[in-house]
């Protein structure tokens, strides 16, 4: 029954917009019909960021979050303190930022939480404090291993109301993409995607559209060979595994409505091939989902936004979408497990 548990929400970098979008989302919980969550943060920081308008906070254990959610923002206090320096990231907050993530994962793996939802972090203050992971996602994979799970290959999915897109390569220079793409990488990424679409998204027979790399998917090799030499063999290998994959498709025509109706997720070869359509279709509502981990993790698809933190202009739309999707995925996992 672990997945009926409330969602664990990390605070992210407290100098960014994480605290205020968490507060704003809770205040508008009825408007958005939000599922219950608890925030892993320092109560003093949250109170200070609530500003002049009063905020009802309940210091809780995860088990109490659901019962308190309607009248107070459930908050699980961290051991580490977070200093409130709005807009100015500080390495002194690294311990609290990391503790918030660690405890969300621990709670979810032990069944006290249904899923992990993370607010944005920035790399620099963490790096300055000795953190050595390329990003959030890699750290989460590390935590899964630390808790005794098999080594995982985390896969990033951008999930919006109209498109699910999975970039096969992510934060690397465009010039490196053709070198980083291998048939094996595409097959592994697609298999993890198909597996989570079945087990967590509740799609019995997921259909995967695989993009080409080059203009017009190479036009038969006239504009690059990768589509024929690397991507097509991956599509064929996936089909042999019984996965309904097709492609490589020209990237500029595979995202229009008629094309989107033919697949459940698009596998894209590089970051912007996935991000351009995801943001064009649903700028505020796109959610970052990490597939392939032994727990569910979603996050809003934006950064810390230090430049607007504390100014009251940050929008909680993407966090709201991340919370709702996390709940939906956790519920699906129960029904299909």
């Amino acid at each position, binding site marked *: 029954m672990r997945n009926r548990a409330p969602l664990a929400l990390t605070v992210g970098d407290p100098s960014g917009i994480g605290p205020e979008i968490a507060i704003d989302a809770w205040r508008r919980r009825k408007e958005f019909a939000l599922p219950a969550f608890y925030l892993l943060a320092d109560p003093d920081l949250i109170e200070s960021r609530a500003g002049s308008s009063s905020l009802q906070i309940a210091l809780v254990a995860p088990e109490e979050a659901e019962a308190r959610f309607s009248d107070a923002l459930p908050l699980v206090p961290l051991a580490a303190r977070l200093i409130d320096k709005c807009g100015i990231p500080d390495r002194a907050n690294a311990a609290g930022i990391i503790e918030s993530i660690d405890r969300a994962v621990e709670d979810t793996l032990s069944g006290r939480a249904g899923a992990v939802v993370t607010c944005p972090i920035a790399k620099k203050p963490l790096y300055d404090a000795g953190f050595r992971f390329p990003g959030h996602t890699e750290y989460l994979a590390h935590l899964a291993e630390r808790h005794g799970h098999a080594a995982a290959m985390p896969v990033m999915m951008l999930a919006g109301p109209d498109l699910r897109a999975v970039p096969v390569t992510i934060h690397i220079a*465009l010039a490196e993409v053709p070198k980083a793409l291998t048939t094996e990488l595409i097959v592994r990424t697609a298999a993890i995607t198909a597996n989570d679409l079945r087990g967590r998204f509740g799609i019995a027979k997921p259909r995967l559209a695989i993009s080409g790399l080059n*203009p017009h998917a190479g036009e038969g090799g006239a504009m690059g060979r990768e589509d024929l030499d690397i991507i097509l063999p991956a599509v064929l290998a996936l089909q042999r595994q019984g996965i309904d994959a097709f492609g490589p498709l020209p990237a*500029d025509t595979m*995202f229009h409505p008629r094309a989107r109706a033919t697949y459940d997720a698009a596998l894209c070869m590089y970051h912007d091939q996935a991000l*351009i359509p995801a943001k064009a*279709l649903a700028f505020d509502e796109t959610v970052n989902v990490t597939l392939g981990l032994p727990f569910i993790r979603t996050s809003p698809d934006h950064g810390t936004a230090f430049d607007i933190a504390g100014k009251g202009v940050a929008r909680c739309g993407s966090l709201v979408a991340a919370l709702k999707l996390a709940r939906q995925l956790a519920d699906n996992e129960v029904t299909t497990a």
Partner: protein
Amino acid sequence: MNVKVDDAGERPLIALAMGDPAGISPELAARLIASPRVAAAARLVVIGDRRILEGGAKAAGLMLGIATVESGVIGPAASPVLIDLRNLDPAAVTVGEATLTGGTFAVENFSYALRLAEAGQVAAVCYTPLNKKAMRFAHPGYDDESRFIQELLQLTGRIKEFNVLDTVWNARVTSHIPLKDVAGQLSREAILAEIRLTVDCLKQSGVEAPRLLVAGLNPHAGDGGSFGMEEIDIIGPAVNAAVADGFDVSGPLPADTVFLTALRDGYHAVLTMYHDQGQIAMKLIGFDRGVTMLGGLPFPVCTPAHGTAYDIAGEGIANPLASEEAVLLAARMATAAHNRGGSA
């Protein structure tokens, strides 16, 4: 050269070459002739075959109201006219297939329209979609419209393809090349040249003070050099050089939001680094109304950005919006050129 306008001196004459007859081109031509938006902005001189055009009107459920004129004598009437080349018997059309017959029809109409514009009889050329394979059957060595025009009219200048969505233009530094070659082909000079050409073409279309955004190459525009150095070494310096030359240009910006920013903040153009960077966004934001415009020519040439749509040929369901937008853009450019008292 003075551009040709209608008898009231207001609407430019625009040649509309009928494109590939096996797809939706015939019904698009018929819909353009019947379009009040087109009629308000331009006077069409349709080039093709009346029988094929009648077929298109029938598919679209329209009565065809267009007079035929003899070649070269367009006359002062206010309504659209057809130059009937009598060059294709409907019985010879294989619907939904690229054929030599279809390609020959399209090549003849397109050539005729370009010659009319070259002679100053019309102010601009538009055409309904062509099929590349059919064009190659009819015109061996056919590569794309730009090359075709260059050879036909023996032009030496560079022709630049723009994709236009509503009021935002997209130009790209590299186009039909493998993705692995993109980074190597970027240079400050190439980017600066594209900025200049885009600004020139925008001015020709009547935009007095063009404002441009330039996309980065890498994820998050390189994130300060974390994922690639091209933004710092090449694109940024090119933008700075353009700004120093007095252009209103900003960038490099992350490619996943640059079009949304351009649309929101009223920029006139986005310069992208590679084919799909612009094409994905443009086709997604406005698949039904995108226009391809060929700049750097003595007169505007515009066409809908979509293709021949063989799968829905003759069904009468083709959306004419992009074709209308193509004529409207050509009309705006021709009118701007006319107001300047020169050629486009």
